């Protein structure tokens, strides 16, 4: 074979960043079932479009994780089979890795942990072939640590989060470094080190403001609101809520808005305002249902049951528990809390809810 016979395929039509973003808007408006058949017209294989698509899905993941999971799944499978020539050199592997990471992250938010794990493995199998892979491994490590935190493997988180935060900083991933510290803060809180958790979140809040990452500053304030509220420190909790609320609303961060409403419910409950607390919890419940956060939905039902028991409303409390249990069963959410779940179910049968089991169980859901 001679050199001049080795030909490269034609270059894709050139697109500016703006044109690519507009194209993504048009693609996402087309129902998924129609897209593959219109792949050429929609430019589904254009690398500039795929780059803009990943950017768009990343921006939307906290506002609408269910749709991001669905979109990332579609594009991953579209690029994967049949084997398509996408962009140049490592770009096919990169886009497959990025889409799998997005799908995994969205599934993690949605409490679909087994799916998330599988997507992270897919991301890894693609990222291993791209240029500069250490950056993507660090991003992937954060997601896996997030999963560990949600599965209450706090010892693991406390060991690995500082190490990954350090690696992320060295790789120039300032935002990912702060995100690893988020998980460290959660692990401190959940293992009873409240002071350490609050210190970590104060540092994150300051660093995020310095680095100009308002999203993380708002999320840190939201977590601080929850922690202060759980400790009954109403003044600090309200101050943090006031810092977080407008930023979260502005960014359309519905996941953290729902969590903030939940924290406000906790705060009102500590203040003895049961009616207003129930309202805040129901508002968090509606938001979580709309986004598809089934884990949070189950947990808030249990928290509401606890509140209703305080108010002597046994029948309504039972209703809330009955609303939560099928979700916990369907999603196989708390294998670690199996004992508490069994006790609660048993107490429900006896028509006398076991308060300790109820509290143990909803504790498993709260980050």
């Amino acid at each position, binding site marked *: *074979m*001679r*050199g*001049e016979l*080795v030909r*490269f395929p034609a*270059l894709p039509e*050139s*697109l*500016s*960043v*703006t*044109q690519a973003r507009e194209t993504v808007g048009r693609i996402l408006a087309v129902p998924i079932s129609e897209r593959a058949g219109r792949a050429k017209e929609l430019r589904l294989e254009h*690398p*500039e479009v795929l*780059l803009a698509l*990943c950017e768009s899905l*990343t921006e939307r993941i906290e506002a609408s994780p269910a749709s991001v999971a669905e979109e990332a799944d579609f594009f991953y499978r579209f690029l994967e089979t049949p084997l398509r020539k996408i*962009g*140049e*050199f*490592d*770009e096919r592997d*990169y886009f497959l890795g*990025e889409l799998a990471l997005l799908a995994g992250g969205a599934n993690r938010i949605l409490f679909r942990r087994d799916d998330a794990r599988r997507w992270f493995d897919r991301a890894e199998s693609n990222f291993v072939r791209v*240029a*500069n892979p250490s*950056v*993507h491994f*660090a*991003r992937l490590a954060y997601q896996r640590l997030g999963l560990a935190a949600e599965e209450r493997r706090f010892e693991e988180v406390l060991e690995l989060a500082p190490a990954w935060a350090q690696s992320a900083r060295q*790789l*120039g*991933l300032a935002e*990912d470094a702060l995100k690893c510290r988020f998980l460290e803060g959660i692990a401190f809180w959940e293992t009873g080190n409240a002071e350490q958790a609050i210190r970590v979140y104060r540092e994150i809040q300051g660093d995020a403001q310095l680095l100009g990452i308002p999203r993380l500053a708002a999320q840190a304030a939201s977590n601080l609101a929850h922690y202060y509220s759980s400790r009954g420190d109403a003044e600090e909790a309200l101050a943090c809520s006031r810092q977080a609320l407008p930023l979260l609303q502005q960014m359309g961060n519905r996941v953290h808005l729902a969590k903030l409403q939940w924290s406000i419910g906790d705060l009102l409950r500590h203040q003895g305002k049961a009616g207003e607390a129930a309202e805040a919890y129901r508002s968090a419940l509606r938001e979580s249902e709309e986004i598809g956060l089934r884990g949070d939905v189950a947990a808030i039902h249990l928290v509401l049951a606890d509140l209703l028991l305080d108010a002597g409303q046994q029948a309504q409390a039972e209703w809330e528990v009955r609303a939560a249990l099928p979700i916990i069963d369907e999603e196989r959410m708390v294998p670690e809390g199996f004992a508490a779940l069994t006790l609660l179910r048993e107490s429900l049968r006896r028509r006398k809810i076991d308060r300790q089991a109820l509290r143990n169980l909803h504790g498993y859901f709260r980050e």
Partner: protein
Amino acid sequence: MSSTFTGKNNEAASVFGQILPLIERALVTNYRLPPREASEVEQRLYDWFQRFCRRPGSRKPESLRSELLLMACRAGHVYSVSKLEDLLSGDDRLKRSLTLGPEVIAIEIEKGLDKRKPRPPAPKDDA
């Protein structure tokens, strides 16, 4: 070059321009690409690099020149391997490049650059 550049991409274009002579040398001298094929590969590397610099977590383009050179050598390597049967006989330099692999060749070329001349000043980050 075909792509439309804005903001940060100007910096990627500038870095590419600085490294282009080395890329060309790698493709033509180390991997024996004919000039026309070398130009095609350079165009593709340019398009790739400006998107590569916009991936999440990417550092400034100036600090990604090793990745650019490595990808150039990988492209040259793949091209040359496809022509191996015809070209390998009697070309010691090509044989050496293919035996050592693109990672080693990219490092050799980069070291040569560092010895020859000081780096140009880093362009401003206008991203």
